[in-house]
């Protein structure tokens, strides 16, 4: 039981990390990025190939994965999403952008399928995958490292948004696009950067997941839906919300399944999700406009 709780917390924080990018992008662009899972897949593959070619530690892959996914997100926003965004900027619900991100999701997933084939791949790092005992509770080192990376990355992001010039500009844009451009903030550049950061966080999540997970072209799909649930639970646009939402999901999955069949826990998650939507649609932490 203790191990189940511990596993729930560790997995939850990592789920939370995968959702942080989604919530950040929503907070600023007010757009649900359906390509989230595909970006995660890209991060997993980038990590996989890095480890495969260099034979080093998966966590070192961050050096390559972060810039790779950052620029991927940056340029996808710049060339594919921005044109649609511009034509829809006066629309309250930019549905076109949702469709575009879905198109990107299909493209990336199937590009990976064409390039790498459909087989499952893992990296084997025995030193981090073995469960170790902490006060009699068991958890693999890779998840513990994942937990700390999740907390650190979220903390760094929070700090960046709070104190850096660019971070403040991102917050300003998320609160009032027009006013921000009257301050001389180029809103489309902010969107590019935000998208880049959001995807880079996906990349980090990929590097964190790979040591105990696997990768194949459509791997992002499950996590995609999970992330939607997490961000709404925590409050769309809220970074602490994403982490707490992730923890809740992780705990339901891990602890709940000790009482009911594991395949039923998903149903429980959806039911809780719908209840939250109806009772408090802004989620647990959602304050419109604040991260």
């Amino acid at each position, binding site marked *: 039981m203790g191990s189940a709780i511990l596993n729930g917390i560790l997995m939850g924080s990592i789920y939370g990390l995968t959702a942080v990018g989604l919530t950040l992008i*929503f907070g600023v662009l*007010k*757009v*649900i990025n359906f390509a989230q899972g595909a970006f995660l897949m890209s991060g997993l593959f980038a990590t996989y190939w890095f480890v495969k070619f260099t034979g080093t530690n998966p966590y070192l892959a961050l050096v390559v994965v972060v810039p790779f996914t950052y620029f991927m997100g940056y340029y996808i926003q710049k060339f*594919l999403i921005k*044109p*649609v965004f511009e*034509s*829809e900027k006066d629309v*309250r*619900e930019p*549905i*076109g*952008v*949702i*469709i*575009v991100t*879905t*198109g*990107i*999701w*299909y*493209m*990336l*997933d*199937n*590009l990976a*399928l*064409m390039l790498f084939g*459909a087989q499952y791949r893992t990296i084997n790092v025995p030193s981090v995958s073995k469960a170790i005992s902490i006060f009699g509770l068991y958890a693999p080192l890779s998840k513990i490292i994942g937990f700390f990376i999740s907390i650190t990355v979220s903390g760094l992001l929070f700090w960046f948004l709070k104190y850096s010039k660019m971070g403040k500009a991102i917050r300003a844009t998320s609160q009032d696009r027009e006013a921000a451009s009257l301050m001389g903030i180029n809103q489309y550049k902010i969107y590019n950067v935000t998208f880049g950061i959001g995807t880079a966080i996906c990349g980090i999540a990929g590097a964190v997941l790979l040591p105990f997970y696997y990768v194949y*072209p459509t791997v992002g799909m499950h996590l995609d*839906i999970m992330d*939607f*649930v997490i961000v*709404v639970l925590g409050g*769309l646009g809220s970074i602490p919300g994403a982490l707490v939402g992730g923890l809740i999901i992780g705990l339901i999955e891990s602890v709940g399944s000790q009482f009911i*069949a594991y*395949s*039923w826990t*998903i*149903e429980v998650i*959806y*039911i809780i*999700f*719908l209840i939250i*939507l*109806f009772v408090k*649609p802004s989620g647990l932490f959602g304050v419109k406009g604040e991260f």
Partner: protein
Amino acid sequence: MKFSEKQIKLILLMLSAIVVFLIPVFIKNQGYIQIFIVVMFFMYIATAWNFVGGFAGVLPLGNAAFIAIGAYTSTILFVQYGISPWVGMLAGGIISAIIGIIIGLPTFKLRGAYFALATIAFGEGIKVLFQNIDKIGSVNVGGARGILISYSGDSFANFQWVSRIPYYYIILVMLIILLAITVFLMNSKMGYYLIAGGEDPEAAASLGVNVAKYKLIAMALSAFFTAIAGTFYAQWILYILPKSVGSIDLSFEIAFIAIIGGRGTIIGPILGALLLKPLGELTRTYLGGALPGLHLFILGLILVLVMIYQPRGIQEVLTKIFNRFVKKMVTIKRS
């Protein structure tokens, strides 16, 4: 002889109606008939989606749940109690409409992204439910195994034929009825209120339009007709599985077809299905075997390109071309 634009359009309409009704006479290849059925099936469910997704101005992404409800209701009634699928079809439609209202009541208060996500969760929730439930009392739901409807000879009452042609005409008639209802509704008071509420809920409400009520009616209609398609699906494929009738991929596809065609227009879902489904079939048939994934890549690309260059869907440009074409015909005749 001289024709006005309107007359030419009417002639074209009648011609094409004749063509569509005669296709099975000329085309003996049941493989194509099957593709036509697929295309019309998607035209139908995308049109039903359009009630809510197009006219009421929100983005439902869980409509596969209604297909599942319709398919399961009629199949369970048929397989276990011998009740004709035609009756089951109505039952499924009504159950689905009620569930649509129940789910619509709270969700219509939500806006934009939240509504989309709520419907995704609803759709997935229903799928997982069907996957996990084996039996309710003595009713065998089949769980993850699905339910096979065994073929017991051609019969109208049993909604089963070896030939695809009956299915062709059934879905064609269903489509025409649904389109007629759509045209009728959209030209009625309800249609105007719905569109007004979709475009600007606050303004519509301030004019005394009960937006929520009309949205709920739209939701009920959409759920009802989508569920009927579920029964059609079950009898047409003769096998239902939570994964195939309730999947999120199906929900997304329905929405994409309507959006690429042009949501909020009557012709949009028709054109969307007409573009995407045959294209999907052809690319899957001719490219899928050679390079797995290429066809889906192309679908993704089309989605992106249409949204960038034709954000109101392909109906806009096609309508223009069509009108120009008709005008030209008028001038040719006159000269």
